[in-house]
């Protein structure tokens, strides 16, 4: 099937494009034409006659490169009650994502070819979204011995990370950065000094003091960000900092970038949407690692996004089952099911003027593609048709039971948000379309 996406506002940061209306013609999985007012019938009605052209009227919609979430947890193998590759993929395509990277803290952990291949195969069977496995830095994510990087790369891993745990030993982190760089692979660092965060349950500060909960100080993150920047500078290798949550980390990364160190960074929507005040009633849906921080940190994260210090927005989608969250705060698992609110929370930044729409889309498509060195993130003629269309004005209320993800654990339940994906094309095929029929003016949903 070929597709004509008509009349949308096409925003593609990879070619500095923001144009409305602009049409996109997709043939055999590839973007073949990007023009104003492409004829529905093509060469004298050839396409229409052959019946293989579907036309979507996307007036009022934003059409963007397929969104890429470079930090998710799909939980399979091992924790299928929390999420499976299928349910995670369903959540992703319905939320505008065409590619997602999944972290290796499964059971068994993804520290070997067999697990990487299993994830790839499962994702292909689902046939919804491109799934890029991230493998561990160290065997078992135990921080002691490097995993077989080259073999994992060959099996389909796109990056290395012990996400969920830091590599505490600086000597091992140094070797990981050097070895990974030598085979052109990114390393994603979960920055947390375990000695400083030990026993902590939420951000150390005024709210934790009131609640009597042991704190995780911001410095537990900052000190490791500083270490990894120093290592990257020393070894001349790149490093990617995951889920930045503190003001000081933003400042360290900003400074490192001006010094030409190859550091990139991501943050998650909850760090620019919520603070630790959310936890006043001990709601475990707000328990996450790194923890929700202070209003000061939140402002710094927004500023870091605006000035480019923070390159990417990733959901850190961490689905959990009810049994993981309906317990005492201390025993609750950390994490937020984030795929399905990521775009709309990002659009709040656009609405309040913190980011332009182009910046938002850049941080959710081309930047993660560049960091992970994966295809996508562009609507250039000739590229594979991974395309997202969303209605930036569609108002909706976050209803957790309606999440496609198995993880209904979100602090955003009940929030009134704007902006929702309406059409997701992966590899030139429609993988999701909003069930609400759009006013097609006779064209509609074909």
């Amino acid at each position, binding site marked *: 099937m070929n597709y004509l996406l008509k009349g949308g506002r096409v925003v593609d940061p990879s070619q500095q494009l923001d144009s409305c209306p602009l049409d996109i013609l997709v043939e055999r999985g590839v973007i073949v034409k990007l023009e104003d007012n492409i004829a529905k019938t093509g060469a004298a009605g050839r396409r229409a006659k052959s019946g293989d052209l579907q036309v979507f009227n996307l007036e009022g919609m934003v059409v963007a490169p397929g969104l890429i979430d470079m930090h998710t947890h799909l939980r399979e193998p091992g924790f299928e009650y929390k999420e499976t590759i299928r349910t995670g993929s369903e959540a992703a395509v319905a939320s505008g994502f065409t590619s997602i990277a999944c972290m290796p803290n499964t059971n068994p952990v993804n520290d070997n070819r067999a697990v990487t291949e299993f994830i790839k195969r499962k994702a292909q069977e689902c046939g919804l979204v491109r799934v890029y496995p991230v493998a561990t830095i160290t065997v078992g994510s135990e921080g002691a011995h490097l995993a077989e990087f080259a073999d994992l790369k060959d099996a389909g891993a796109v990056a290395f990370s012990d996400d969920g745990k830091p590599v505490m030993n600086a000597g091992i982190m140094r070797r990981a950065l050097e070895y990974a760089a030598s085979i052109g692979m990114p390393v994603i660092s979960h920055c947390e000094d375990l000695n400083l965060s030990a026993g902590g349950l939420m951000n150390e500060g005024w709210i934790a003091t*009131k609640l009597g909960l042991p*704190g995780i100080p911001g410095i537990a993150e900052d000190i490791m960000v500083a270490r990894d920047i120093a290592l990257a500078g020393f070894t001349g290798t790149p490093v990617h900092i995951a889920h930045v949550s503190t003001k000081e980390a933003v400042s360290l990364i900003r400074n490192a970038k001006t010094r030409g160190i190859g550091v990139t960074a991501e943050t998650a929507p909850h760090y620019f949407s919520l603070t630790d005040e959310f936890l006043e*009633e001990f709601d475990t849906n707000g328990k996450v690692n790194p923890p929700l921080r202070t209003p000061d940190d939140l402002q710094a994260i927004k500023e870091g996004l605006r000035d480019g210090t923070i390159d990417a927005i990733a959901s850190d989608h961490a689905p959990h089952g009810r049994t993981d969250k309906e317990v005492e*705060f201390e025993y609750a698992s950390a994490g937020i099911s984030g795929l399905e609110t990521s775009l709309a929370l990002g659009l709040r930044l656009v609405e309040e003027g913190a980011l332009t729409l182009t910046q938002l889309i850049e941080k959710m498509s081309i930047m993660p593609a560049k960091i992970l060195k994966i295809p996508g993130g562009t609507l250039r003629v000739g590229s594979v048709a991974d395309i997202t269309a969303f209605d930036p004005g569609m108002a909706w209320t976050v209803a957790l039971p309606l999440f496609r993800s198995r993880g209904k654990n979100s602090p955003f339940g009940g929030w009134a948000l704007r902006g929702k994906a309406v059409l997701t094309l992966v590899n030139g095929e429609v993988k999701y379309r909003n069930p609400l029929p759009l006013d097609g003016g006779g064209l509609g949903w074909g």
Partner: protein
Amino acid sequence: MKLQKKDILGIKDLSIEEINLILDTADSFVEVSTREIKKVPTLRGKTIVNLFYEASTRTRTSFEIAGKRLSADTINISASTSSVVKGETLIDTARNLEAMNPDVIVIRHSAAGAPHLLARLLKPSIINAGDGAHEHPTQALLDMLTIRAKKGKIAGLKVAIVGDIAHSRVARSNIYGLTKMGALVAVAGPATMLPLHIEKMGVAVFRHINEAIQDADIIMMLRVQTEREKQNIFPSLREYAAYFSLNTRNIRRAKDDVLVMHPGPINRGVEISPDIADGPYSIILEQVTNGVAVRMALLYLLTGGTG
């Protein structure tokens, strides 16, 4: 006047009027415990479950005696391990108890917020008998009752709370309560025992006991948990006793009629010298006596009684 509350989760949530109502009601119950026959029929037919996930002598016994003196049926459940270790979740345990229609569930738990979880999900009234380092509202109420009885007022008194503020639910509940009632509260401890931004709770903060107890009307000493030594919160019990204990020398800095309180259990010779604990300033055992009256008042008010 009725207490318009389903649960007692913390002093933070109580108004001055509610605190006064509880203390006034408790005053009227003090006398019951001095009678020849220490029992009134007030709560006949009511069921109270004491669900204790943490070791407790004083508080659990106090709640049990309070319930019995009001003729309620009281049941004690002691889980020596946490609900998670035990295999049944807290919610499942509590729902099973709820299915037997108790009127009040009293819970102590090492995890802050555990009583709030039950309060959200269950019909019976929940009383927090201590949750982690968060709150211990009945302790603060009995402390305020004791202060009020001895000093005739709370407002304007200088109260020093000394010790591990960071890990103390007694400190938090008393700070909320005493500052609401108009006392001037000072806290003191080594920096490792003072949580970030504690001054925002409306207290004066000192690094040494001597500064905090200067001209104090009340000194409240907190128990040092010996396991904190392993976490390097302080170097040794020896050093703590030498620099942070209340003893016959430094107590002279306080007012002549100072009263010394301690929520118990005390570490004799660590945070408090035996001379002080057993001495004329000490009202530690009166606190315990008043604990029964305060808990009787709460059980009575929560089950619909009027003050």
